[in-house]
């Protein structure tokens, strides 16, 4: 388990527990008692720490390497998953994975950003930073869903769209713009979930959805706190100030009327109890899809556009 800086006191207690367990092999009653006390302390500390995470700490949790990623959710929630590849124009971009599958009984199209979990997979998925071909693949899959009247589930987890010469050359901006347009055009339900980091244009490209869910400690922002700090404070060292000012937490976004629902994570964050997190998101996705069932395509699309038009119109200030 990878521990974050602010989790150090918890890590120390847990290693103490490990040591004690190792010593006794469970036979010594005094040690077992001590372990129980320490475990109690850990639980309390986790609860209190995670109840009042600062925005900067949430940024770390959202990017935690052990946090479940897109393919973990797909693996656990989608049966008969059949990945589909390529944009039919240039290439296959593994930063965006997607395909057909069955989610709790219904056929769906799933699209999401995958960051990878070790060096090899991170490189293969380009750290979850998609190029134009990735966003064009997303468009293709949304159109496929539209053609066969299947709901779309998107899983958002990216630092942002890939910033590189090749991406610019092939029209990164156009690909993102068209991807947003496709989200807003299809006549099937779209549910988006921000599972980790919702990085700017690269995130909204697949998140202009009927329902936008967000995990409790995920973040969603117009710019990374580091990027914002280096521009407005002229120093990336002010990233924590920027994280605060940008209002990028799920709680902020709910208050601002940008997301529809916060999905609670287990105490200690998604990375501590991955399975529970995945199931919690699965339940929330199912609720959202159920809520969108039975609407005709036209009114669904109208409602989706209306929802975005209403953002910022009321309840602020």
């Amino acid at each position, binding site marked *: 388990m990878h521990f974050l800086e602010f989790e150090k006191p918890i890590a120390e207690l847990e290693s103490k527990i490990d040591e004690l367990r190792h010593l006794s092999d469970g036979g010594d009653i005094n040690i077992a008692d001590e372990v129980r006390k320490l475990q109690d302390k850990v639980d309390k500390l986790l609860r209190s720490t995670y109840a009042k995470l600062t925005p900067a700490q949430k940024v770390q949790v959202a990017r935690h390497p052990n946090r479940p990623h897109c393919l973990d959710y797909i693996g656990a929630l989608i049966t008969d998953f059949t990945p589909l590849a390529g944009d039919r124009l240039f290439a296959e971009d593994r930063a965006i994975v997607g395909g057909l599958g069955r989610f709790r009984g219904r056929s769906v199209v799933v699209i999401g950003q995958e960051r990878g979990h070790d060096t090899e997979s991170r490189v293969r998925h380009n750290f979850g930073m998609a190029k134009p071909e990735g966003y064009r693949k997303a468009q293709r899959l949304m159109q496929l869903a539209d053609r066969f009247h299947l709901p779309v589930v998107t899983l958002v987890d990216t630092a942002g*769209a890939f*910033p*590189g*010469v090749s*991406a*610019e*050359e*092939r*029209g*990164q*901006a*156009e690909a*993102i*713009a*068209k991807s*947003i*347009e496709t*989200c*807003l*055009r299809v006549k099937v339900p779209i549910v988006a979930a921000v599972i980790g980091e919702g990085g*700017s*244009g690269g995130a*909204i*490209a697949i998140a*202009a959805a009927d329902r936008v869910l967000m995990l409790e400690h995920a973040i*969603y*922002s*117009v*710019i990374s706190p580091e*990027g*914002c700090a280096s*521009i*407005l*404070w002229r120093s990336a060292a002010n990233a924590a*100030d*920027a994280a605060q*000012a*940008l*209002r*990028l937490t799920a709680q*902020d*976004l709910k208050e*601002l009327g*940008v997301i529809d629902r916060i999905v609670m994570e287990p105490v200690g964050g998604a990375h501590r109890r991955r399975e529970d997190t995945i199931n919690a998101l699965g339940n929330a996705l199912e609720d959202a899809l159920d809520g969108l069932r039975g609407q005709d395509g036209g009114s669904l699309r109208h409602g989706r*556009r209306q929802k*975005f*038009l209403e*953002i*910022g*119109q009321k309840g*602020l*200030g």
Partner: protein
Amino acid sequence: MNWLTNFVRPKIRALVSSKKDVPDNLWHKCPSCEAMIFHRDLEENLHVCQHCGFHMRLDPPKRLAMLFDPNFQTIELPKPIVDPLKFRDQKRYTDRLKDAQSKTGRPDAIAVAHGKIGGHAAVVAAFDFGFMGGSMGMAVGEGLLAAAKLAVLQQAPLIVVPSSGGARMQEGILSLMQMPRTVIAVEMVKEAGLPYIVLLTDPTTGGVTASFAMLGDIHIAEPGAQIGFAGARVIESTIRETLPEGFQRSEYLLEHGMVDMVVHRKDLRGTLIRLVDLLRRPGPGAEVVRLPKADSPERHMARPMPAVIPGGVAEPPRPD
């Protein structure tokens, strides 16, 4: 060049002289070739350097005057909530806004006007780079939605002239939400069957390029304009790639298929008039007989379709 001599020049002169009776700066330095240009020559050349052809940025009044026929009207735009995040970096966002407002005399970074272009009704939305880098926050989003609604109301083409560094960070996620919101504005215009033309000017980057600015029916770019998604510095620092010559310039985008044409400022108005005329006045030979929509009741009434004669003239069905 009638419009230029008869209208634009006096209009621009009027704009300049309204600010200050005696311009204290009679000479301007070209930011590209550093030549000193006499202010009257600059105005005459639509703020294009006569030595090197560098296109300087235009504020909305100059841009609108350059594109429209005389007597266009700038509309008042909706006023969204100011500073929704109570954002503060080293400076308060509200102070930055006030500074920009007093510098430009504009409430935010966009102006919307309607009028005629070569006799055709048109709505133009022009960005002001001088207002916080033309950044897109709620006011700009609202401005584009207002422009789209006006275009639909008047059954007029929408021409948008972005000049923007991207999203306005100080409005956080609400500025990001202007990406889908402005895409919806574009959809309104497109679904009404009206032309949507984007005139890309220096610079058009970030969330602005990645939303309404890359969805035009036609993309025109001014020469040498920087157009792209990621900033050159971001690319250099994060990916450590060296940037090719002319990277993210209009001509580069033309080569890579992202814009239809790169047009010198002096030819912009003429080009727009020609395009709008071609799209809006198709002539009898090109008229398409519209069939009733798939879901409209007429379709089910099994009425005999009128015969269509080449040339577009429909003849009513004759009894046998």
